C-alpha cells in the first residue's frame, strides 16, 4: 500500500481548473514524470510480447536472442512451418474451427442472454426475485463442480467431438455474466418507452424486439465481443471434448504443437501463437471503447 502514497504531491485528482492553470509549470513537470513512469511500466509489460513477435520472424537458432528486431536472421520459415499444421491438418483449418465455434457461441449468447435479461429486467412475474438471486449465485459458482456430470451427460448424448458442448450451454443462457450485464443495461432504459409501446398495443415480444433491443446495441456489442474473445481463448472445453485433430480449435492446436515440435521448431510455435492473438487484438483495437466501458460498468452500476 505504501507505493500508493509515495506518488508526487498533486493538487488532487479533481483540482478545479483555475488553480491548475495558474500553476501550469509545476503541474506539467509532474505530468512529465508521470508519463515517464507509465511509459516505463508499459514498456516492461509489453516487451515480452514484442519479443515474441520479433522472434517469430527469426531463424530458430536465434530464437532466444533478447533483441526485438530480426535483422539479418529474418525468415518466414516459422510461419510457413506453422501454417502447415499438425499431422496433415493445415493450421487454417483450426482457425476456421475456432471462428465457427466462436461465431455460434456469440449468436447463442446474444439470443439467450438478451431474452433472459428482458424477463429479469422488464417482466413482473412470480419468483423472479428468487431466480435472479440464483442467477447471481451462479456467477460465482466454480465451473468445476458441474464439470464431471456435464461431461457424462454430453458423452451420453454422443456430443464428444462435436461443438455442441460449446454452444448448447450458451444457448441456455448459462453465461450469467452476460445475463447480468444486459439486465443492468435494460434497467437503465426508461420505462416510459415500454408504456408507450404497450398503449399502442405491443406485447412483451414486440417491446423486446422493437424497443429494448434497438436501444441496447452497445451492451449487445459488448456481449458479442467478450463472448468472441472468451470462446476464442477457451482451452479447457476443447481439451475435454475434442480428440479429433480435424476439429481442434486454435488453442488446442497450439498446445499440441508443443508436443509435436522440438525446441528447434520454436519459430513455428511462436508464429502460430502470434497468429492466434491477432483476432483478439484486432477485436480489441476495433471495439476498444465498448470493451473498456463494458468492464467498467460491470462492476459499478447497481
Amino acid at each position, binding site marked *: 500500500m505504501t507505493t500508493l502514497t509515495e506518488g508526487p504531491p498533486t493538487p488532487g485528482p479533481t483540482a478545479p481548473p483555475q488553480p491548475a492553470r495558474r500553476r501550469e509549470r509545476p503541474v506539467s513537470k509532474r505530468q512529465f514524470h508521470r508519463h515517464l513512469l507509465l511509459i516505463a511500466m508499459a514498456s516492461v509489460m509489453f516487451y515480452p510480447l514484442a519479443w515474441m513477435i520479433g522472434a517469430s520472424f527469426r531463424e530458430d537458432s536465434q530464437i532466444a536472442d533478447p533483441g526485438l528486431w530480426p535483422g539479418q536472421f529474418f525468415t518466414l520459415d516459422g510461419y510457413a512451418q506453422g501454417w502447415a499444421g499438425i499431422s496433415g491438418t493445415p493450421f487454417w483449418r483450426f482457425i476456421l474451427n475456432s471462428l465457427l465455434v466462436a461465431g455460434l457461441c456469440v449468436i447463442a449468447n446474444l439470443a439467450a442472454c438478451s431474452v433472459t435479461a428482458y424477463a429479469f429486467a422488464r417482466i413482473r412475474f412470480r419468483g423472479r426475485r428468487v431466480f435472479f438471486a440464483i442467477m447471481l449465485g451462479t456467477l460465482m459458482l*466454480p465451473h468445476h463442480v458441474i464439470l464431471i456430470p456435464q461431461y457424462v451427460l454430453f458423452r451420453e448424448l454422443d456430443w464428444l467431438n462435436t461443438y455442441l458442448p460449446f454452444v448448447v450451454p450458451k444457448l441456455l443462457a448459462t453465461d450469467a455474466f452476460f445475463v447480468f450485464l444486459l439486465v443492468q443495461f435494460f434497467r437503465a432504459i426508461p420505462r416510459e418507452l415500454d408504456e408507450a409501446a404497450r398503449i399502442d398495443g405491443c406485447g412483451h415480444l414486440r417491446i423486446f424486439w422493437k424497443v429494448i433491443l434497438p436501444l441496447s446495441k452497445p451492451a449487445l456489442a459488448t456481449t458479442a465481443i467478450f463472448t468472441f474473445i472468451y470462446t476464442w481463448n477457451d482451452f479447457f472445453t476443447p481439451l475435454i471434448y475434442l480428440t479429433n485433430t480435424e476439429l481442434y480449435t486454435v488453442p488446442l492446436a497450439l498446445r499440441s504443437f508443443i508436443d509435436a515440435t522440438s525446441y528447434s521448431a520454436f519459430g513455428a510455435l511462436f508464429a502460430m501463437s502470434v497468429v492466434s492473438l491477432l483476432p483478439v487484438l484486432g477485436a480489441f483495437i476495433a471495439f476498444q471503447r465498448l470493451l473498456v466501458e463494458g468492464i467498467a460498468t460491470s462492476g*459499478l452500476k447497481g
Partner: protein
Amino acid sequence: MTTTSAPHEAVPRTPPEPTARSNKRALRENLAGYAFMTPWLLGFAFIIGGPMIVSLYLSFTDYSLLSDPEFVGVENYQRMFTGDDRFLAALEVTLTYLVVSVPLVQVFALFLATSLNKGIRGLTIYRALFYVPSLIGGSVAIAILWRSIFQGNGLLNSALGSLGIDSDFAWITTPSTALSTLILLNVWQFGAAMIIYLAGLRQVPTELYEAAMVDGAGPARRFLSITLPMLSPVILFNLLMNIVAAFQAFNTAYVVSNGTGGPADSTLFYTLYLYQRGFVDFDMGYASALGWVLLLISAVVAALLFGASRRLVFYGDES
C-alpha cells in the same frame, strides 16, 4: 455500487393492485416471464443445477465411466484429507497463488488507476494499453510465451546475459520458482481491475478532496481517508471476481507444466489436479468430490469476505 446490492433492485417498486383486471394481467405477466425465462430455466436445470446435484451424488461413489457408479459413502472425502498428499499440495498451490497474486493485482490496479485519474493526457491510450494483457493473458499463446521467457535457455536468462549477468537458472523447472512465474503472469493482468477502479474513482465526489485539501490533508491522508473508503465497494467487487478467477486458474499451469503440475507438484493448481483425476485417471467420483470441496472453500472465502465487508465497506448514503 457493486453487484452485491443488485438483488434488491429486482423488487418491484409498485406492486399491481389486486383487481380482477390486474389479476388477468398478472397471469399474463407470469406466463410471459416464464416464456422469456425458458432458456435460462432449462440451462439451470440441465447445465448447472442438475449437474450440481448429480456431482454431489457422484462424490460419494466410485465411478470410472466404464461401469455404473458404486456407492462408497464418504470414502472419497476421507481419502482426500487423510491419504492424499497431492490434494494437499494442490490446495496449497492454489491458496498460495491466490493469497499472493490477488492482493498484488489490487495494489498495481489501484496505483495505476489513481495515477491515471489525475487528469493525465492520453488517459484512454494508457487505459487501453494496460488492459490488453487481461484479454490475452489466459490464452495458450501467452502461456507458451511465459514458458519461453522463464525456461533455462529462455528470454529472461538471455536478457540477463546481455546485461552481463550470466544465468541459466531454469525458472519454470525449479520447484521453488515455478509458481512465482505464474503469479507474475496473473499480476501482469491487472488491467481489468484497474479499469473498474478508474470507473469507481470517477464517482468519488470532487468536493471531498477539495474539503480535505482546505483542511491541509496531504496526498497520503487523502488516499487513506477518502479514496479507500469511497472505493471500498469496488475493492470488494474486484477482490471477489479475482478470487473466483484465481480458484479456477488452469490454462497457464497446464501449458507451462505440460499438464503435469510439475516440477514436484509446485504448479499443481487445484483445477489441474481435478482435471487429472477426472480426465486422465477417470476417477470421476473422486473428481466430483474435489469439485464440491472447491465449491465449499470458495463459498467460505466469499462468506468471510462479505463478513469483513460489512464492517469495512462504506456504501455511502444508500446503506
